[in-house]
């Protein structure tokens, strides 16, 4: 799985975002992380092909059984969807 690493001043938490490049809520999630200088890694699953796509989809389903996007892992917690309040809470923003 090829993740894109986004550097940020706030590296207090381990943040992984599973997203779709075309999805409005996924973009909102990236903007929320970017505007708060959060360090994170993301993967646009729709840009993956073949085996990688299947592998990442399985991973997303492990974290969020519906397999919907965005799926955000913050340390040991998982947020399904753009839930700004919950993301802020977990990131202590």
């Amino acid at each position, binding site marked *: 799985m090829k993740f894109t690493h986004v550097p940020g001043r706030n590296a207090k938490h381990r943040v992984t975002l599973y997203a779709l490049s*075309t999805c*409005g*809520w996924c*973009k909102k999630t990236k903007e929320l992380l970017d505007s708060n200088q959060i360090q994170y890694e993301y993967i646009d699953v729709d840009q993956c092909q073949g085996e990688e796509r299947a592998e990442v989809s399985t991973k997303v389903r492990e974290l969020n059984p519906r397999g919907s996007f965005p799926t955000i892992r913050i340390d040991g917690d998982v947020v399904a969807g753009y839930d700004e309040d919950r993301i802020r809470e977990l990131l202590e923003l």
Partner: protein
Amino acid sequence: MSVEERFSDEVIKTWERLKKEAEEAGYRLNPDRVFTLRLVQGLIENEKRYGYWCCPCRLAFGEKDKDVDVICPCYYRDSDIEEFGACYCALYVSDEWIEGKKKHGSIPERRPAKFMRDGYSETPAPPQSLAPSPQPLSLPVWRCKVCGYLCARPEPPGKCPVCKAGKDRFERFM
């Protein structure tokens, strides 16, 4: 949100057309211009990748039969607008949502888990509560699975006059 975000003429023209069609049919597009233009850009991208307008917020299988329920406008739009004030990707919203009476954000996925995993499949469920027709119908009745439009004619229309869904998204209703 980047101030300089640019959209192609194709995206802007498509957005204008969708907005006009939505309003004519009693729907509303999300008034957040940049958010909505991004979704339209996503739809056009999906048209190029898959050959049809798969929902930009759902991962396509890339096979039309498996994705037919989430081709925009999707089968879940009207129920989501009714319950949450917005469809899943928030391209279509209600007046209440626009006025801020409904919370803005991701909504739960209404698409059944089975379809999420394996793709769409027909689940024939004939309307059981309806009384049998007293006399045979002179024509079959077709139902648009996107918006519920009904018409009695030999074949479904090429395009739904209400929501513009294609002929292949109609089912025999009676």
